[in-house]
């Protein structure tokens, strides 16, 4: 079974029901299915090895996702916010590709490339024209999705999710057609993030209409949620922060009473922000979803009842659960292990390991799964004595800012290109707005560059999310006897400076 069956079942059951609303147009499940089958014809004919979306979200995303599945080709949405050099490198890695979206940028970055490139509207029209709605869903056993994800070193890894991982995840967490006809989910997360893909598949299988907001803006989000009577929404913490700001004290806000279920994930949710949101949306249910690209998204969740219980509890232990990511899904196994791989008891922090059918842990380059199928998440955390999972940062050095993985290495490499910088370390520091913000500590070998100069250097070579919020100059960076940079000491320097 492959993910195309998820859409086919919806199209068979309720062909005329609206499945997606984008830029004012409604798409029924039958229309989405038909377009996906047409996309498959074009993709198969192109000989492409990957289908890439280089675009903000739109109906093209689910059409391409399912079309690629039907054609037996991995779907590999690309992050359009990447700098040219980085995006160009990724496009080269998936050549020859069927690329939908920014035709001009692809022409600039891959001029001699053997790619078939389509503007969004052209792709959609072609897909509708070539539709073969009577065809069966696929039986694909291969790779459904490929997502480039940052690790500790500069070059992104190509994480792969097989059809079996995604199908297991959806069948294990979503009741087919479980949504009532009036339900609608506002999706504003980017199409190149696992949450954006999981949102499409979950909503399609539940038959909950998707309201797609291509580019997040808090005021537009609020207006759209009100106008389309969104009942569900998924947000990353930074989006929720901006929505809460835009709502102010709630007195001038449009009617959001339809919003019954807010799910959040993709990064650390500051408890102060959650409390404000709980107060602004008193009748909504909140769900915290913790997951990774490599695990097909959610592996643990803190549900609405658990939020409510924690919110009104006087017991500090129960109240603390507002800061947890909840209990592991019944379909996965989760353990905390120390550096030697020994399983730790409740209360002790270590690295989070997870196992289950939805867990891939595979990259193009290699599998990260250990014998027995366990996947080391590189997230640090602990379980309390009732099985609630608490995160305590990264077990590796990756900075997680606004739900986005940032490799310290890429920032450090750029800083070291400056003639006055002898050494550099980039670490995450706590941030109410972002979960973590980027901070850098540098040692000099010449005249001290200005903060503005350093920030420009990083913004120009990388992008704005990599620009440090804090820059600290020191005599020398802390190393151990083996010559290893001690990042926890770097963080201490920032904390005490």
């Amino acid at each position, binding site marked *: 079974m492959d993910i195309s069956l998820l859409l086919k079942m919806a199209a068979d059951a309720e062909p005329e029901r609206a499945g997606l609303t984008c830029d004012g147009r409604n798409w029924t499940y039958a229309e989405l299915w038909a377009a996906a089958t047409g996309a498959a014809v074009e993709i198969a004919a192109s000989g492409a090895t990957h289908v890439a979306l280089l675009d903000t979200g739109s109906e093209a995303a689910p059409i391409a996702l399912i079309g690629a599945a039907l054609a037996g080709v991995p779907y590999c949405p690309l992050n359009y916010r990447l700098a040219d050099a980085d995006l160009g490198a990724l496009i080269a890695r998936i050549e020859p590709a069927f690329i939908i979206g920014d035709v001009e940028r692809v022409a600039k970055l891959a001029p001699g490339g053997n790619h078939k490139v389509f503007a969004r509207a052209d792709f959609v029209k072609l897909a509708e024209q070539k539709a073969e709605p009577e065809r069966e869903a696929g039986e694909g056993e291969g790779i459904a999705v490929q997502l480039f994800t940052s690790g500790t070193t500069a070059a992104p890894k190509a994480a792969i999710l097989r059809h079996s991982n995604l199908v297991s995840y959806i069948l294990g967490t979503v009741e087919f057609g479980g949504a009532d006809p009036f339900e609608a989910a506002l999706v504003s997360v980017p199409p190149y993030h696992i949450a954006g893909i999981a949102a499409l598949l979950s909503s399609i299988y539940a038959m909950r209409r998707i309201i797609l907001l291509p580019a997040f803006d808090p005021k537009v989000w609020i207006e759209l949620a009100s106008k389309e009577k969104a009942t569900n929404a998924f947000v990353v913490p930074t989006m929720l922060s901006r929505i809460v700001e835009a709502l102010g004290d709630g007195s001038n806000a449009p009617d959001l009473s339809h919003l019954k279920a807010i799910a959040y994930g993709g990064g650390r949710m500051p408890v102060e922000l959650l409390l404000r949101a709980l107060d602004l949306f008193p009748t909504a249910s909140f*769900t915290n979803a913790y997951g990774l690209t490599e695990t097909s998204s959610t592996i643990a969740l803190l549900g609405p009842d658990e939020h409510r219980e924690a919110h009104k509890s006087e017991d500090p232990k129960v109240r603390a659960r507002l800061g947890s990511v909840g209990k592991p899904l019944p379909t996965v196994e989760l353990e905390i292990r120390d550096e030697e791989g020994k399983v730790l008891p409740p209360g002790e922090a270590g690295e989070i390991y997870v196992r289950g059918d939805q867990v891939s842990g595979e990259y193009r380059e290699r599998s990260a799964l250990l014998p027995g199928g366990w996947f080391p998440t590189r997230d640090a955390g602990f379980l309390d004595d009732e099985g609630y999972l608490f995160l305590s940062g990264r077990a590796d050095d990756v900075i997680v800012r606004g739900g986005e993985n940032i490799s310290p290495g890429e920032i450090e490499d750029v800083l070291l290109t400056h003639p006055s910088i002898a050494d550099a370390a980039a670490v995450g520091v706590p941030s109410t707005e972002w979960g973590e913000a980027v901070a850098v500590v540098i040692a000099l070998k010449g005249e001290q560059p200005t903060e503005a100069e350093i920030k420009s250097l990083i913004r120009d070579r990388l992008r704005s999310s990599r620009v440090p919020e804090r820059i600290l100059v020191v005599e020398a960076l802390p190393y151990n006897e083996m010559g290893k940079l001690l990042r926890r000491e770097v963080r201490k320097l920032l904390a005490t400076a």
Partner: protein
Amino acid sequence: MKAGSKLKSAVCDTEVLLVKAPAEGVLSCGGAPMVAERGEKGTVDAAFAEGTKMGKRYTDATGSIEALCIKPGAGSLALNGVALQLKDAKPLPSSD
């Protein structure tokens, strides 16, 4: 029977996908063994005529089999002659 395989009813429109399959056994629908490809359509045995519902999952008492209905029909499912039950769905809150 293999997990991941599709089976069709020989006597009604039902089609299922095996999410979980026991090593041995016969899955029937409407009283007739399910098949990979349909031949001539038979008639539904009244004892197994509860019908199947799209998207529902059916299991036995031990959980050795899990059949996802991908096309509904008039017959109902049984493993080795024992009627399958609707899987107890404890729906999770929507998290995506």
